[in-house]
Structure formats: C-alpha cells, structure tokens
C-alpha cells in the first residue's frame, strides 16, 4: 500500500491540519508517513498545500510531482495540480468558488460540498474533517477507528471537546461525497 496525496487550498482552510490528521492516522495503523508543507510566502493569503505520503514500506522521496490523489480547495490549486494527478488517480474538490471545473477524462473526479455542509451545520470549523471523511470514503486506506485516534493525537488536549463534532463530520463527509 502506498498513497501519495496532495491537499491544496487557501491558508486557513485547514489544509495542513487535514494532512496532519491523516499522517497521524497512518501511524496508528503502523504505516510509514511523511508530511511536507509548502512554507513559503504563499502561506500569507495565497495558496497553501501539503504533500502526505502513507506507505507500508519506507518512504524515499518526500518531494513528489505526481499524485495518486489531489484534494483541491481553490481555483489556483485546481489550475496548478489537476495535471499532476497520475492517470487513473483521484481528484476531489469542493465546488465552492471553483469557476473552471476539472476536465481530465483519465482520472476519477469527485465533488464534495463541504463549505455548504459546514454552513448548514453552523460550524465552519468542521470543513476540513468533512473533506477528510469524503476522501476516506473514496480511499479507505486507514480504518476509521485509527482515523479517530489520529484525530485525537493531532489535536492539543484543549481542543478535545471538538472531537465528537469532528468525528460526526468525518462520517457525514463520507455521505456527501459524489462521483462526477
């Protein structure tokens, strides 16, 4: 098993923390993991992205150009990373704010209206765990119980009160993701 993933969007959308939850989930399942963020000036207001690799073997390069899965959360990231999904790979995106939709025919494309769902539930902070749930529906690489453990591990203790809402959001994300 090896999953090479990129999550890309605006700073503040929880891009880096979604990757961190996933990486911790991988550790809970005894996988090797690597999490590499973009840390440049683009973090200030522009795009933020993180590469996560989860594998049952030692991971060589943390720097990769082609991805099994791309989770795209804004238009700039769509323009940049649609072409970097491997043929046969997966692209997941939230349609909110997307003006040019992905066009590739050789990959599987899914949409998840996480912005709308988070607003409907009156909690913008669960946006990224909804996305994570959707991703895990498409790519169930880690057992849900390990994801919940990874979620807890990646949060400081003072934030543990938000665990039930986030667990519910992961389950909800699994329901609302749609194949395009």
């Amino acid at each position: 098993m090896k999953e090479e993933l990129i999550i890309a969007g605006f700073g503040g959308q929880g891009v880096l923390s979604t990757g961190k939850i996933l990486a911790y989930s991988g550790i809970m399942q005894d996988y090797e993991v690597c999490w590499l963020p973009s840390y440049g000036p683009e973090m200030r207001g522009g795009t933020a992205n993180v590469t996560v690799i989860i594998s049952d073997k030692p991971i060589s390069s943390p720097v990769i150009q082609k991805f099994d899965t791309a989770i795209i959360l804004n238009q700039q990231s769509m323009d940049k990373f649609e072409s970097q999904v491997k043929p046969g790979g997966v692209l997941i995106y939230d349609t909110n704010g997307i003006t040019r939709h992905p066009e590739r025919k050789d990959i599987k494309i899914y949409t998840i209206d996480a912005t709308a769902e988070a607003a409907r539930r009156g909690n913008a902070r669960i946006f990224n765990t909804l996305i994570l749930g959707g991703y895990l529906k498409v790519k169930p690489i880690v057992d849900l119980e390990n994801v919940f453990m990874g979620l807890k591990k990646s949060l400081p203790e003072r934030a543990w009160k938000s665990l039930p809402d986030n667990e519910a959001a992961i389950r909800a994300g699994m329901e609302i993701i749609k194949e395009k």
Partner: protein
Amino acid sequence: MKEVKLMKGNEVLAEAAIRCGADAYFGYPITPQSEVMETLMEKKPWETTGMVVLQAESELASINMVYGGACCGKKVLTSSSSPGISLMCEGLTYLAGSELPCVIINVSRGGPGLGTIQPSQGDYFQATKGGGHGDYRLIVLAPNSVQEMHDFVFDAFDLAFKYRNPVMVLSDGVIGQMMEKVVLAEQRPRWTEQEIIEKCGDWALTGKTPDRKHNIITSLELDPYAFEKFNQKLVEKYNKVRENEVRYEEFMCDDADYVIVAFGSSARIGMKTMEMAREEGIKVGLLRPITLFPFPEKPIAALAERVKGFLSVELNTGQMVEDIKLAVNGKTPVEFFGRAGGAVFSPEEVYDALKEKLIK
C-alpha cells in the same frame, strides 16, 4: 515500547537538544528553522533539566555566547539558516582555532545573499571548506530524515567532545519542515560540575585549583613558528577524523552501472529516482555521504573502479561534485545535476538528467 511521535525536523532538533543533556542553546530566529527555538521556549527546559535557552540580539551574539559556554566545558549549541550562519562564521573559526566543542545546526535555504526561504544545499562549501578564515575544519553531519535530525544532535555532541572541535549538522528546509515518525531518546542528565572537571578539566575553564596550572582558551599566538606547530596539530586531528569518522550509506551499489551521489533531502529524492530506474531494469545505485567532512572518498574511489559513471545530485549549482571528482580522479565520468535558489527537483527530473547525462 517507545512511543512513536509525528514531528517536524525542527521540533525534533529542540527535543534532542534537551534530551541529550545540553546545558544551553543560544539563537536568533530565521526561517526555515524558527521552530527550533519556538519548541525550546514551549518546552521550558530551564524548569526541568536546568538547560538555558536564550534568544540573543543577533547571530553574532549567539555564536559568541556559544564560545563562552564551550570555554567552560558546557554542552552548548546554536541553530540558524544560511544567512545567519554566514554571520556566525567569524565565531566558527575562533571556535575551531580555540579547539572548542560545540554544535551548530544549519537548516539551510536558498542563497547567495538574503536569498529565499526555500530549501537549498548551497552551503556545502561553507560547511566543509571553511566559511571563516584560516586552516580549519568542521565535522559535518548531514541528516536525511526526521529521525536523523534527532540522532545526529547526540552524535554531534559526542564527536565535538571526542575531538574538541565544532560540529555542524547541515540540514535544509525540506528536512526541517517535514513531519515523519520519530522515536525520542530517554532524557540524559546534564553533566555535573564534577563530571565536567573529569572530562574537560585539562583544558576547560572550570576554575583553577592549586593542583593544576591555568587553563587558557585563545586562538591568538604571536610567534608564527609556534602557531605553525598548532596548525600542524590541527592537521593531525583532522586526519584522525578522516581515518575514524567517515559515515555513508550505499544502496544497490553492488551491481550498479551508474551511481547517484547525494546527501540530505537530495538523497531521499535520488532514492526514488533509483527505484524508478530499477523498475525499468537500469542498474542504478545510490551512495549517501552522511559525514560531509570527513568525505567518504574511499568508497567512492572503490566504486569508480567498476561503475560507468557517477551523477552528483545537489540542491545547488555544483559543489559536492568537486569532492567526488577528486575521489574518482578521472577513472570514470562524473556528472552533475542540480537546482538552486530554493527550487527543489523532483525524482522524475533527476531521472531525466541521469538518462541525458550518463545513460544516453
């Protein structure tokens, strides 16, 4: 069983500094290594082990505080990134000239000048050939994983005290910023005053007692012939380091036709290139220098007898390639591929370069 944690390379440097029993850290913030001091400030080791953590007013102040601590036989370290290390270079040569053990960490970024904040290996020459003036060497360790960021802080202090020499851990923005699994060592106690006297009493400023002469720490000598002798003593020390401390790793070199030589994050990227080539039936191996000084000349020279060529892969415009060429001594082609200024190559780009320059 030890707990496996998910941590950034920079955070792990801070943890390792505390756990190896360091007495003090002096630093000044700079991207991409600011998490080192941030983590130390968060951990407050002065409340547990008694370790001092101090944000100095500049890199110059930090390195001279390191000098002061090291004079007393204390385990002291600093960390910075490329432009900050340049500011410390005067201190580095004074530390080497006074034979003071200490650890300097460089999480390097694109240069020259203020450059960029993205990863680079453009400081290879600075780390291995000087930076400061005069005939001196740093022992240089190049980690390529978050676990090694942890382990090499321990190793660096061991080497520093074994040879009474500054040791540099040369990392880069990739290794500093990425998170991987890491197992942290148990807390080691700081040396007591008595232990420092036992280990370093013959040179360190531990307070003169009636039964010994003054220890004097200086790099100044007015008599050139006496100082030539001192230079010769340093040469002997560096030769001992060359003999005993070379560290490197070889991957699939036994049957390799072509060998990639790369250190730090480049070695991780090159490893994937090697895997890609092997999948296509091309016999590529990889040699990773772990110590950049002392450089693994002998294993490279041995491979040069039988491989069709080397590709030096570096995040700069060609620095380590010169040391490879010296080791190979014309026996087989040595090519270079790199990107610089903070741009990072992908495994695919390295593979294309390998095909274009060597396999043909």
